[in-house]
């Protein structure tokens, strides 16, 4: 519970705070890691964990322990229960979490600028580089691509969230 609450604290922190904290940490203790891919991934994990948690949590609530017990009583081994009951119920939440995090990670800028390995670029940093140099024309394709990439998970998320209330409406008999 405390762990769960503490992850939400991260949402209140600007990305730059977390990035600078990681810079300090890696410089001091593991200099080899500074400006290397793994550290950026750690930053993303810290930044987007709360997002994933919210989505997954809601779906885990869809798979109460009682359902798993019923499945056991009906003759399923524990791993079969996982496959036939737990996974199908949790899957939409996992997918939603994936979409949310993907969407955020693709467009994340501040931490990425600070932590990205030398020479590497993401769409967002490339776009940033060009706009700071006033090369709006050159920046445009990156912005366009980001929009296109963002549209797919947004569309899927939208469909998923729309599906829920529709499913919850009981059909009169």
């Amino acid at each position: 519970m405390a762990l769960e609450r503490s992850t939400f604290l991260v949402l209140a922190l600007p990305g730059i705070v977390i990035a600078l904290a990681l810079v300090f940490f890696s410089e001091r203790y593991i200099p080899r890691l500074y400006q290397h891919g793994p550290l950026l991934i750690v930053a993303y994990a810290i930044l987007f964990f709360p997002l994933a948690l919210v989505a997954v949590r809601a779906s885990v609530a869809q798979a109460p322990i009682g359902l798993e017990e019923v499945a056991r009583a009906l003759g399923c081994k524990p791993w079969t229960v996982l496959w036939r009951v737990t996974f199908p119920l949790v899957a939409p939440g996992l997918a939603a979490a994936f979409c949310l995090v993907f969407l955020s990670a693709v467009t994340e800028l501040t931490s990425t600028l600070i932590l990205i390995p030398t020479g590497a670029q993401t769409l967002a940093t490339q776009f940033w580089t060009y706009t700071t140099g006033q090369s709006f024309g050159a920046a445009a394709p990156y912005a366009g691509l980001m929009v296109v990439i963002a549209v797919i998970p947004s569309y899927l998320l939208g469909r998923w969230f729309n599906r829920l209330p529709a499913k919850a409406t009981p059909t009169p008999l």
Partner: protein
Amino acid sequence: MTRLAATDLHKAFGHQSVLTGIDLDVPEGSLTAILGPSGSGKTTLLRVLAGFERADRGVVTLGDRVVEDGRHYLPPEERGIGYVPQEGALFPHLTVEKNIGFGLSRHQRGDGRIARLADMVGLAGLGERYPHQLSGGQQQRVALARALAIEPEVILLDEPFSSLDAGLRASVRADVQSVLRQAGTTALLVTHDQDEALSMADFVAVIRGGRIGQTGTPQELYEHPVDPAMAEFLGDANLINGSVEADQASTPLGTLVLRSGSARVAGPTPAVVMVRPEQVDVWPGRSGHGFAARVVDSQFHGHDTVIRVMLDAPGIDAIVARIDGGAALAPGTEVTVTVRGPVLAWPDEASTRDLTLSEPRG
């Protein structure tokens, strides 16, 4: 023949003892009810029988197999026990048909069994629906069909009607009872509702304080409760202090004949006497042949009327009477009270008030 039996079952959660020596026999083909107040350990017992919890001590046998004896333990999926939980717990991502067929092999699913089961529980034609499209009663029927589909040795029902509203409960109860009879399955029903246990079951085992307090047919339990607390738990009872001698009890309501099976003592002995409300007759006005009393209050239920009266004579609490039909009487109305039929008495029983089936503390 016994289908399901538990011997000396013990179970504790931390320092909290929940089951303290359960002995239970569920005869083949019967519908047996475990009746107990909340917190009495009845759900824990069911979970141990199903294999969801391990017993600390004791033996569970299912047919001729020992499924738990402290050392050996058969997991729930190998017991072949049908389980109907409180809220039905249907798989929300599967249709009615797939819910019913969940425990069946691919081959079994093809043989028309699912349609027969759906038909049996009165849900023919709803196979393509999802659980959220069903009413509470329908969901319970699907849960029952799903449990019956695997042709279990025993089916366990954990307060299956408690989530239904009162009007629906009676009809779903009756349906479930007839489906279980039709299927000939041995069933064990856990409930806190005396009415449900007495009206549905062939045998009732009352659980209190982690043990079985009394077992018998509903009629045996109602007519011969082992002690005053049991009497109060199984229906309404007037518990009156009096004294017994041979086959008679002297009470403020006159000298009453003891029921056969009631404990007999030779000399006069203080006793608690049970008079069921339906044994009490209330006559309007004052007449010579009964006991003068006044109405305290009355509730009109249509099919009967429950009247509380206070005797003019001292030394007795208000008496509850249940009169067929009848009409509500205004408080203060003068009436005459008589008792009909033999009564049950417990000689030397301590004051009834400290013997209630209280819920465990902590």
